[in-house]
């Protein structure tokens, strides 16, 4: 590695220069209807496969882009020249679909808005049936809570006209949900920050103790998913260039 990672003074003291940033580390997983396995956020890097996803072609998984994660390397392990302080975690949900806007849910449950907005009923189902846990160094869980305990604190504060989203065929109005509040002050701050050291394994596991999310409604789009994008809140040390 060509970077300066350690300076030793004449008196023997050692300092490790670092570049601390507030840029959050983030990672996404895709939640499907039907039977679900555990999904691990932060388990892949850019170019890797997004857990739970399906490629647009309908076969294989979606390749992660910067929209999915800013993890480097293979994922699951923090790079040797980075460290992480986690003051909180925010989880935003958005609807992913092959059909972009028009009548995505036509003929199914009433009240469904157009992607990427998520129906309120589906948000409640995800909150009801999903458990997330923060695993560090593969020793134990440092947080294990229902998904709703970690609000997105991001999203849109909507104003809606009569019975319409962008789709034109909605006759019942729309009902939109977000994982908790959408403003910055809505996030949950951990009373005890967690640290992920250089080279330590970590992930955020999405578990589904009931085996699936009952009633999750995607209409007839088999490629539809709800993407859960997790943001680490806190500071991150990067290598000095």
């Amino acid at each position, binding site marked *: 590695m060509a970077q300066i990672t350690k300076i030793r003074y004449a008196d023997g003291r050692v300092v490790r220069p670092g570049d601390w940033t507030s840029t959050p580390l983030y990672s996404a997983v895709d939640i499907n209807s039907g039977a679900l396995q555990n999904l691990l956020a932060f388990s892949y890097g850019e170019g890797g496969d997004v857990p739970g996803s399906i490629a647009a072609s309908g076969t294989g998984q979606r390749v992660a882009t910067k929209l999915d994660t800013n993890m480097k390397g293979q994922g699951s392990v923090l790079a040797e020249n980075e460290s992480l302080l986690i003051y909180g975690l925010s989880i935003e949900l958005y609807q992913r679909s092959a059909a972009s806007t028009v009548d995505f849910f036509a003929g199914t449950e009433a009240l469904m808005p157009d992607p990427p907005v998520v129906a309120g*009923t589906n948000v*409640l189902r995800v909150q009801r049936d999903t458990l997330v846990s923060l695993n560090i160094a593969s020793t134990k869980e440092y947080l294990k809570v229902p998904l709703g*305990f970690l609000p997105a604190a991001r999203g849109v504060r909507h104003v809606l006209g009569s019975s319409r989203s962008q789709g034109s065929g909605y006759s019942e109005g729309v*009902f939109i949900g977000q994982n908790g509040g959408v403003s910055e002050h809505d996030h949950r701050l951990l009373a005890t920050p967690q640290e992920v050291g250089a080279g330590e394994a970590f992930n955020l596991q999405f578990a589904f103790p009931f085996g699936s999310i009952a009633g999750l409604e995607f209409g007839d789009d088999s490629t539809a998913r709800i993407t859960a994008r997790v943001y680490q809140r806190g500071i991150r040390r990067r290598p000095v260039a």
Partner: protein
Amino acid sequence: MSSLNKVRLADGREFAISEVYHQPRFSTVELAAADSVNLRSFNYTPGQPVSRTPGIASRIATERDTNMIKRKAMNQDESLVVCAITFEVFGLSSASDSSGDSIALAPMLSGTDLRRLQTQGIFALRVGAGIKKPQYDVPFAWLSQSVGMESYASDSGATSTHVDYGTAGEMSARNQEVLQLPIYIGGFGEHARPGNSMYFEGRFYNPLGAFTGLRQNVRIVFYLDGLSKRPA
């Protein structure tokens, strides 16, 4: 237990080593709309039946229902400092108005039903074996809801859906009362170390019996939010 939990120094002094971290305890109760309600919470672990009223089918708890390790108590190597109490709530059945139009499709719980729970429900937390006075005992309306969904609805276009949805306050992690006096659940004095457990239990009930006008069956997940201590 394989973890390091006690260190004896050369001079004979002992230190109990533990890890304190932010981890709420949560527990689920389920009630049928027509049933009298007197439910206990934090009284079962995953693998045991969820606390329910007779009109709700029995089911076995998963880790989504509760993270209790020992029923009605903190485990012997744990303790909890409760700094806030909050909840999330779901409809277990859907609600319609008198004309049959949908107003709350499960798992939505109608705001009207939530208000019914607020006005007639009581939440109590008891700590300590044989202790009859609750450490915390409030009308359900006093508990703010910090876990749930922020939502927006258009007015109905057609005739068959008229949304009625509500949450107990703004959907924000800040929307929970920080207790002026946190509640400690664990050993005291010389017993305040791993190796001791303490009884505690939540209770949700309606002194009048059944909730007047309640239309939906309901699931409530109570959270004791705060600092947990566990072996290092």
